[in-house]
């Protein structure tokens, strides 16, 4: 009798475990299927290359794509050097002490702050205090601090996997420390650094709360090259922001689902890409 109870209990636990695991897979499949069924019909060449205009009768997200690309470029251009530099300092130069503890504490704290707080800060500091207003630049500056911890941490992990023999060998041959870092360490850690950078791009593409009050929501496509150069100083909504507005204030669910399809393709592509990259360069893999 007691053994039977035990068996029933064990089976129940096992059933619960399997159900929970299946839930994640079904949830993901459900999301993908639902979004694609609702949105794939909207996505065509015109949707991707034109701008929504009542006058011309077109619905499109080209302006938002340009905004997203610009924000990603500006943010990464600044965030990657700072993040990588910070990781090199923490891993190679700093002797563990007070400063390192504070820097690591600060990085952890930044990673835990929600995007809406970054958005508020960006609006108050970059937008109002520095007078940049609603602009792609304000948005990018805000996102730089937001993705910084992600890049720093991934680079630190990558640097930790480079064996010390590389460092000693290079220094032993008479190389200076920075020379060693530049020519030996960084190339060896490059796959990890790139993985971190790509993950940061994914984070930027999916970000919304930090951009709503910093980059704004304009969707006009710059007409000339000069206009494109000037674009960072103007308001611009990314794909994610446009999706939010389409689904809420504009009530245009077709566009919302169309953008959702594009977002899922980009974000999932990025994730699968980094996974392939990691696997390709993983020297510790078993198979």
């Amino acid at each position, binding site marked *: 009798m007691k053994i039977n109870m035990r068996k029933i209990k064990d089976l129940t636990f096992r059933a619960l475990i399997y159900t929970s695991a299946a839930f994640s897979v079904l949830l993901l499949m459900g999301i993908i299927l639902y979004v694609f069924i609702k949105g794939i019909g909207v996505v065509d060449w015109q949707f991707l290359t034109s701008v929504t205009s009542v006058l011309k009768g077109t619905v499109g997200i080209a302006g938002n794509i340009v905004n997203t690309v610009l924000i990603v470029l500006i943010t990464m251009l600044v965030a990657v050097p700072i993040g990588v530099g910070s990781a090199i300092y923490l891993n190679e130069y700093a002797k563990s002490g007070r400063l390192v503890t504070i820097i690591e504490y600060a990085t952890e*704290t930044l990673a835990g702050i929600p995007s809406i707080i970054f958005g508020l*800060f960006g609006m108050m500091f970059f937008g109002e205090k520095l007078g940049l207003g609603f602009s792609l630049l304000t948005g990018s500056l805000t996102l730089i601090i937001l993705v910084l911890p992600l890049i720093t941490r991934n680079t630190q992990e990558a640097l930790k996997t480079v064996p010390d023999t590389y460092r000693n060998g290079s220094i032993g041959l008479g190389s200076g420390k920075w020379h060693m870092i530049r020519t030996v360490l960084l190339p060896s850690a490059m796959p990890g650094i790139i993985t971190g950078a790509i993950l940061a791009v994914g984070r930027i593409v999916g970000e919304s709360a930090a951009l709503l009050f910093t980059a704004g929501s304009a969707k006009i496509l710059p007409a000339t090259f000069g206009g494109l150069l000037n674009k960072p100083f103007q308001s611009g909504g990314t794909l994610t922001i446009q999706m939010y507005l389409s689904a809420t204030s504009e009530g245009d669910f077709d566009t919302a689902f169309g953008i959702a399809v594009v977002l899922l393709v980009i974000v999932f592509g990025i994730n699968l890409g980094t996974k392939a990259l990691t696997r390709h360069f993983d020297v510790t893999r078993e198979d």
Partner: protein
Amino acid sequence: MRKNAIIEKTAQAILTICAVVAIFAVCAITLYMFIKGAPALKEVGVLDLLFGTIWKPTASTPSYGIWYIILASVISTGAAILIGVPIGLLTAVFLSEISGRKLGGIVGSAVELLAATPSVIYGLIGMMVLNPLMFKLEKAVFAGDASHQFTGGANMLSAIFVLAIMILPTVISVCTSSLKAVSDNLRAASLALGATKEQTIFKAVIPAAKSGILTGVVLGIGRALGEAMAINMVAGGAVNIPLPFNSVRTLTTQIVSEMGYASGTHRQVLFTVGLVLYLFIMIVNFILLRARKAGVARED
């Protein structure tokens, strides 16, 4: 040779500056949250603002009580944790203790992709799928009740479910790695004493991974408290007592939905809402660092 020495020194200086950026960022954010968030506390009064229950910022005699907003954040986060953590922990058990490489790979990839899905997409699907379901439930529960204000499904229950789903990837990945870190000796010893696999998991492995699991829970709390857009899309648009079938505003959604047009005291109060959220998050971060430290100390 001298030139090299200069390059070395410059490189070190620049790298140090890069590292200090994070400190500056945290200090600047903290400073700004306090500078902008504090004035309204003085203007409206600490008690009236934090514990007031009437939110009428645009009335002729405006009232700025955010107590229900604070409560809505705390309750929806708590409920999301109660739903999400058991599912997440069990999935983690599956990934670390039961699945083979192939099946585990599929579930693991699904979890990673769920983590990468932008929050607005969760919000959109919540609006289209969850809200109608909740509306049906609401109509069934409150049939014939004239005093209930119907929400069309945009209520706290929807917010809780969306949050519970959104914290899953975080909880699963942290729990999985802490379960995997448990020494195999422990499993072998438990099995050798005659315990079944399930007994081993629940009586030996999970207790041993306690501090890691706790870290996952705290991370989940931080994520749920800070989520803004998805909740804003499914939770309705009115400040109410946080009951399951009421439309609610949380700390985050209050900022998202009113910052665009607020001015004067109303705007300052929204900054205070931001400050309250920031303080909550700082407490969560502090607990997190302590939990991590405890975990590291135990491993040594």
